[in-house]
């Protein structure tokens, strides 16, 4: 597993944006969700996205692994343009891991099978190879002893950590998190944030939609604020939380702080 960290460090050295979203617009029917949204993320960066409910945060990050198509603008991930090209889409889905608010573990598979399914089917690993990787990852997120259980038997925090391990098993270059702690009981939020923190330390490029101010202050390199489908502020956490520029950011912060 050390090679994930190495490649990530190599990419820091290159210092090129690994994710570029340029003037992305998207409509659900007549309703425009994204309005010329812009974002650049460099390798190894941790970017937190904040914004009021319905501002399009989920939709925005879901365009980065083609779970949502977009109509205008362009998105490039690790040099690969995200277009209609199905080979590019397949490649990008392998390079981008995602963690959902509702965990979305596969309830009919054990924890171990959840983690090994994609490596075996997509990366064509043998079962022993995949199991070996899965065990390392489960150990890293602290739930190796639950490997043979079904997800339904696990607590929310444990499930979310399995979901993180499952995404990491594909050795992604970028990890997307869509409110990973929002449906957890308060006492479980920490264990998940701890895992994310150590993942950030290992040099993983992360894009995190969250309302956890503490996490953003401590871990994020940048905070991006979205409202009404636009990125309206993109700055350091220190600046965002102490002297936000935009009126809408101020209003938002006054509500969550």
């Amino acid at each position: 597993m050390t090679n994930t960290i190495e490649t990530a460090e190599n990419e820091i050295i290159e210092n090129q944006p690994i994710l570029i979203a340029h003037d992305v617009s998207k409509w659900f029917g007549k309703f425009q969700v994204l309005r010329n949204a812009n974002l650049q993320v460099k390798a190894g960066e941790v970017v937190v996205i904040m914004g009021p409910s319905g501002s399009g945060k989920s939709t925005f990050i879901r365009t980065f692994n083609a779970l949502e198509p977009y109509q205008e603008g362009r998105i490039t991930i690790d040099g690969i343009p995200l277009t209609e090209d199905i080979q590019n889409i397949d490649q990008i889905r392998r390079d981008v891991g995602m963690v959902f608010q509702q965990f979305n573990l596969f309830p009919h598979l054990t924890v171990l099978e959840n983690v090994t399914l994609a490596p075996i089917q997509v990366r064509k690993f043998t079962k022993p190879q995949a199991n070996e990787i899965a065990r390392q990852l489960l150990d890293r997120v602290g739930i190796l002893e639950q490997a043979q259980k079904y997800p339904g038997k696990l607590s929310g925090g444990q499930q979310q950590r399995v979901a993180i391990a499952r995404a990491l098993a594909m050795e992604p270059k970028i990890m997307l998190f869509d409110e990973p702690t929002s449906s957890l009981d308060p006492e479980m939020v920490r264990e998940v944030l701890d895992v994310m923190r150590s993942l950030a330390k290992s040099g993983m490029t992360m894009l995190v939609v969250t309302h956890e101010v503490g996490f953003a202050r401590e871990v994020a390199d940048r905070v991006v604020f979205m409202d009404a489908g636009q990125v309206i502020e993109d700055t350091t956490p220190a600046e965002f939380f102490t002297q936000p520029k935009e009126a809408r950011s101020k209003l938002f912060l006054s509500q969550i702080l």
Partner: protein
Amino acid sequence: MNTKITIKPVRWVQKNLFNTPYNTVLTILCVWVLWNILSSLFSWLSQSEWAVISENLRLFLVGRFPESQLWRMGAIALIPILIASTLVVRRSQAWNFVLIPLGLASITWLANGGFGLPLIRSSLWGGLFLTLFAAAISTALAFPLGLLLALGRRSELPVIRGISTIYIELVRGLPLIGILFMAQVMLPLVVPFRLDRLLRAILGLTFFNAAYLAENIRSGLQSLPLGQSEAARSLGLNSIQTLRFIILPQALRLVIPAIVGQFISLFKDTSLLALFALFELTGIARSILSQPQFIGRNGEVYLFIGLIYWMFCFGLSQFSKRLEVRSS
């Protein structure tokens, strides 16, 4: 002590049958209806003659299957038992998809012959065997078609969705007898090769059943959260892998009770083959009743085959109820 025991039933009767004036009236009414039904049943039973059953037992079970080849029917009876016991030992969905087709193929071979066994025309097949065979094989054949139709009807691609929807709604709008009529009369006109009468009927049942199975499967697909396929796609699984490893295993487990229900319904519907000159249970009953020595024995014969149908249907419905309880 003693009084308690004698009083208990009295209390029970009071509480459950005569607790209000209204219930007293109902109870008396029910007893009167029951009395009438039972007394006419007994007077019928007293003059019934059951030779028509005992003399034709073989016909009821296997139709006119040649006597010298009856061992093949015995072997066929063993196959479902073998499959069921294997499935109990190896609880895995994948085994269903291997064992059941394999079992049906060997049943068909044993019944039909070929590969070393003497051929037996399907017009000699009959009785309970044919009823079970027709129901089982047309469910097995309808399943893949129904699965495709269910997926098609949920597809985002308009042409595929349209074709599936039209097929499903058209078939569900027509009576089975009409579809069997088409299968008997129209199929020979539109296909260039000859199809056996039984095969035509089985195809009719299959096309009919596929539409209903499709709707059952669709409801299972619909009840899965969208997040399941999103998670699979975000891991890089393609749509076929997503279907095979994530969606179908969960959806099919959910719809097993509904599929058993559909099988019960199809099992009853096989009786319609009697109207198309096939000799499954109802057909053989009618042909026995048309023999001069058994004329007028309708009650005995219909009661007997009714009991057979009922035992299978009731047994299966209890089984599917148990499955439903277990899966929830």
